[in-house]
């Protein structure tokens, strides 16, 4: 369009000659977009933190052997009772079913699958912790510390000592923070584990583990896989749990279904296990967008009002422009571009304001027991939000400017000139 520069010059003069009103309109947008950026960065930062709290260390698929009675009882296998209606009362599960049979084979299969990032074997058992006269019950999990750290960020939750220390110390144990607290022991001390079979094992505390979930930290401890197998008096093929991490979380559900069907094991995928977290995330996102859109609608009404007023004041100008050869469309572009300039300037200032306040927030100290890996407020500086923000600003100001500009387009110059 050959008139672009002319139209822009007129727009500029109109806006600058009522700089106060233009600034107020732009500030409305700045406020709306700034709030959007702050809210969305903080909310998604928080989401990321909470997701990290649970999801980062949660296996995408958790495979274990649930203790439950066999579905198929001996009588069902017998041909002579196939036609009869069989009732068996008080079915009890078999003892010691928690072991995954052929666990190593299953792990090898999984490791070869190219959807799988990694696989960890675990041995879980109940124990009593004893130190001096205190006796506590709890869980001990035998792990491969190296793989657990690589796949599930295990090391992030060790507040004293380290995963390497555990690897180096076959007789070592990483105590849950709550357990250590209750037993009043620390790194370097000894703790006795009493197994369900009644055997006692003296272990050396090489670190303290804190997940942030108190009920977990009050019972849980970690030892090396071989140590756990030894606690139970089992060989190196004994595995109770397999944790799988995938490249794509979307594959978790179909894969877990496949595993539980094919291997007759219980396989829980991450979405089923943590459904409530996704709900929380989507509700927080909804609040963020609802608040921002509300603010932008308010800003939009401000722009609509100011442009309407401007057009009312500029009736004469519009009549002159039309009388001297400007078309309705030209006049419409003049007013739309005024709205868009307000939107662009207000929007960019909003991004800058939002970014600065987000930086301030991200530097505010935020220390809490429950989140050992965090020391300032979590803020997500995702460029995507800034693109959404500026699009928001332009779209809402375009909509706010459109109706007034249509009015300007349709003004009959004769009517205005006659009124003088």
């Amino acid at each position, binding site marked *: 369009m*050959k*008139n672009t520069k*002319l139209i822009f*010059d007129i727009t500029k*003069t*109109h806006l600058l*000659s009522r700089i106060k009103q233009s600034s107020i309109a732009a500030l409305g947008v700045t406020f709306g977009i700034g709030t959007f950026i702050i809210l969305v960065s903080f909310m998604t930062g928080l989401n990321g933190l909470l997701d990290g709290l649970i999801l980062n260390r949660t296996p995408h698929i958790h495979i274990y052997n649930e203790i439950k009675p066999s579905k198929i009882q001996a009588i069902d296998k017998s041909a002579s009772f196939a036609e009869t209606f069989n009732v068996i009362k008080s079915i009890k599960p078999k003892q010691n079913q928690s072991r995954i049979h052929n666990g190593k084979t299953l792990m090898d299969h999984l490791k070869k699958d190219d959807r799988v990032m990694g696989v960890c074997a675990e041995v879980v058992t109940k124990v009593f912790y004893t130190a001096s006269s205190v006796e506590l019950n709890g869980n001990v999990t035998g792990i491969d510390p190296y793989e657990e750290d690589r796949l599930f960020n295990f090391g992030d939750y060790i507040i004293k000592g380290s995963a390497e220390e555990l690897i180096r110390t076959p007789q070592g144990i990483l105590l849950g923070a709550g357990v250590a607290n209750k037993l009043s022991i620390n790194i370097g001390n000894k703790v006795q584990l009493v197994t369900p079979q009644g055997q006692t094992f003296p272990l050396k505390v090489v670190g303290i583990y804190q997940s942030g979930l108190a009920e977990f930290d009050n019972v849980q401890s970690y030892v090396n896989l071989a140590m756990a197998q030894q606690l139970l008096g089992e060989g190196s093929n004994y595995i109770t749990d397999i944790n799988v991490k995938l490249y794509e979380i979307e594959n978790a559900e179909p894969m877990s279904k496949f595993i539980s069907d094919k291997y007759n094991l219980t396989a829980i995928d991450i979405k089923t296990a943590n459904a409530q977290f996704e709900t929380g995330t989507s509700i927080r996102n909804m609040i963020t967008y609802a608040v921002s859109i509300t603010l932008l609608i308010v800003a939009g009404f401000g722009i609509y009002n100011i442009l309407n007023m401007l057009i009312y004041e500029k009736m*004469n*100008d519009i*009549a*002159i*422009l*039309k*009388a*001297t*050869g*400007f*078309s*309705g469309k*030209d006049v419409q572009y003049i007013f739309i571009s005024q709205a868009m300039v307000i939107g662009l300037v207000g929007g960019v200032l909003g991004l800058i304001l939002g970014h600065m306040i987000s930086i301030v927030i991200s530097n505010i100290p935020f220390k809490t027991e429950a989140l050992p890996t965090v020391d300032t407020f979590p803020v997500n500086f995702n460029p995507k939000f800034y693109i959404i923000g500026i699009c928001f600003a332009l779209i809402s100001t375009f909509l706010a400017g459109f109706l007034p500009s249509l009015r300007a387009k349709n003004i009959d*110059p*004769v009517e205005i*000139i*006659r009124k*003088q």
Partner: protein
Amino acid sequence: MSKILEVKSLNKYFRKPVLFHALRDIDFSINKGEFVSIMGKSGCGKSTLLYILSTMDTDYEGELFFNENKITGKSHNELTQLRNEDIGFVFQFHYLLPEFTVLDNVMMPARKLGLKPYAQIKKDALAKLALLDIEEQAYKKASRISGGQKQRVAIARALINNPNIIMGDEPTGNLDTKNSENVFNILRDLSDTQGLSLLVVTHDKDFAAKTDRVIEMEDGKIIGTGIV
């Protein structure tokens, strides 16, 4: 002699608030280079006629010719273009864009036309302002100059695209005698030296007497035309 403007059996009705026959069977033409004035009592339809002739009002019956081309029934865009290029309009109330400089106001229609580069348009605009003897006001805001000066700026703006005709609706109606005479002399001079066609509505008998031809109107009709 060729006609710059011609109307044939023009009728205009206002439908609101009541049906009102504002212009009745108007027939006349203006030759190239002619300086014509329209006189008549207030409310007789002079402005209404001028808005139709200037193509801003298209709601009429009859036919309008510009440069011997029929323009009745042309699209809004074609008429806008015609107004921009071939018709200069001067209003009673100077009608400048108050926030722009005098120079910007004069340049505006030429920039809209877009045939010349900016620098050339600026030179032309300054030349027009010089022609009307107000080039020293060029960089002032249009709202900061006197009424007589504004009217001269409006004439300069009407001239910027070298139109075929200039129309004025009581262009001196708002000015004192001295300024009024000044503006008339400018128009007379443009007609004499540049061969510009002019059609000017006026209340001023002395003014009308100095034009080539006077059209007299009453109650929406032309009641007489002649050299005074």
